[in-house]
């Protein structure tokens, strides 16, 4: 497996650096060399791309969200670059779970230590349960249940947004696997803690907040929506304040029972530290790869380390949720 510039596992950020500041974090029992995670849907489409992200310094990697059956997704254009972030209407393209399992096995046998989180999307307990077992069987270190894709069809959205369904899906997954169960939530305006509460009650180990907002862009000369899917997920900088608020709310409500992962617009170490202070135990990074490239993981991680040192902390854990204690 080829990795960027020949960088291998041995040059990953050291788990405990010279000065004694530890970047290592524990996430529902998984050990991450640092709190950066490759977000779902970004470079998670093959073993080799997952490996490349891990070799580039991601503390954990997430697969593209998989469905039981193959999905073509939407035709192009599927992205719009905005001044404040990115719109995408990929539409969950994926080959279906089964054809993807070899990629998971290949990643797991690569020797890379960053845990692999397998992301799945299902609309009933049976599917969720089948998929979760299969993905664990193939070697996923955790299952992430995506209940928040902004590009699902209208019917799917109505279904997936329901507390009842979230409860059922999480219960089904929880029963089917022994690895930790992550639940990836939408950036709801109101009512996020209710939806999350259903997931927590049903046995989720980690809440991931958040998936993209729903937005759109229109070209004034073409006089039509740019995305073929018309609306799409808004990720990147624009999402950050909203997802940060979500993390803060979730940590406040469930911080005693469960861990939270922050995602949305992380571009540099400051963003990451804001999420940690809000209550996240780790941060996922997606859109920033456009602007920062794969080195973003290493740069964010070493920036967090610098911050810990400057502010007199000795571990990431110490600052998790500190904005609630301040």
């Amino acid at each position, binding site marked *: 497996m080829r990795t960027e510039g020949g960088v291998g596992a041995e040059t990953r950020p050291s788990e405990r650096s010279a000065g004694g500041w530890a970047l290592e974090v524990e996430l529902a029992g998984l050990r991450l060399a640092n709190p950066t995670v490759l977000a779902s849907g*970004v470079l998670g*489409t093959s073993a080799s*791309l997952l490996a490349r992200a891990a070799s580039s310094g991601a503390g954990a990697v997430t697969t593209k969200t998989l469905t039981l059956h193959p999905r073509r997704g939407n035709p192009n254009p599927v992205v719009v670059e905005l001044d404040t972030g990115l719109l995408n209407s990929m539409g969950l393209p994926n080959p279906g779970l089964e054809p993807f399992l070899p990629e998971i096995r290949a990643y797991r046998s690569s020797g890379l230590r960053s845990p692999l989180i397998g992301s799945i999307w299902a609309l009933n307990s049976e599917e969720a349960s089948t998929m979760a077992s299969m993905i664990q069987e193939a070697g996923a270190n955790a299952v992430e249940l995506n209940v928040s894709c902004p590009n699902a069809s209208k019917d799917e959205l109505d279904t997936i947004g329901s507390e009842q369904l979230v409860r059922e899906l999480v219960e089904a997954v929880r029963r089917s696997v022994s690895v930790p169960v992550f639940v990836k939530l939408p950036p709801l305006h109101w009512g996020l803690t209710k939806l999350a509460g259903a997931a927590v009650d049903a046995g989720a180990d980690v809440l991931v907040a958040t998936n993209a907002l729903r937005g759109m862009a229109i070209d004034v000369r073409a006089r039509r929506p740019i995305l073929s899917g018309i609306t799409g997920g808004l990720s990147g900088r624009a999402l950050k304040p909203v997802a940060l608020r979500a993390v803060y709310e979730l940590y406040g409500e469930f911080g005693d029972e469960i861990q939270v992962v922050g995602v949305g617009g992380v571009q540099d170490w400051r963003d990451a530290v804001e999420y940690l202070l809000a209550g996240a135990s780790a941060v996922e990074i997606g859109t920033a790869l456009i602007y920062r490239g794969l080195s973003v993981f290493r740069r964010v991680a070493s920036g967090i380390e610098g911050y810990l040192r400057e502010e007199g902390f000795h571990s990431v854990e110490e600052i998790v949720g500190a904005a609630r204690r301040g």
Partner: protein
Amino acid sequence: MHLTAEVREVEKLTARVKLYVLELKERLGSWPGQFVMVWLPGSGEIPISVARERGREIWLVIARVGRVTGAIHEEVGEGARLWIRGPYGRGFSTSPGRHLLVGGGFGVAPLLRLADELRALDGPVEVWAALGFKSADDALLLEEFKEVVDRVTVSTDDGTLGEKGLVTDVVELDWPNVVHASGPEPMLRALAFSCLQRGVRLEISLERRMRCGLGLCGSCEVESTGMRVCRDGPVFDARLLASAEFARRSLEVWA
């Protein structure tokens, strides 16, 4: 957001290939080998190499192969608009020296942009182009190449123009410091084999189905290499071909 481009000129180069000369509001600023995503509202968005850039004008050479290219050929005439975003990707290297450009079919397009750039270099530069086509009817951009490179050799599979044979068979590989190639993948593979054997540096421009063009979605991965055509390429060192399994993957739905 896309840039709106006015179509200044459309020229039929062959039965399947048209040249689109676009005018932008500002200079695009592309590097040889880079591409743009071209959006025709209502039809779709596809990657196309920049074949030439002059001031605010760019040339796109578009072959009709399917839905979007078909719609462009049919609907987009002079005075119409096209939408582009980019330029994207890593292109060809351009240091002084002896350059051989090997092109096949409408794959010659990005090599014209490269030839322009090499011609404009300061140092001592010599540029030869070896252009291969199926038949005389498929030949394109010959005049343009002749204007900017030192020597052009043409070959056709059926011998209707220039030498008869595959361009990879007729090409002269001992002369150049570096070979730049663009064209059908079998051609590139054959060329890679020859160059790697001789220890000649070869840069190839690859194509894969593209979605985001931004290095995020993974659609354009060169199978099992972790390399993305849109971001790590489209131009790669040919050794990538050797190190990769490089088999068209069965999971076509990703692409």
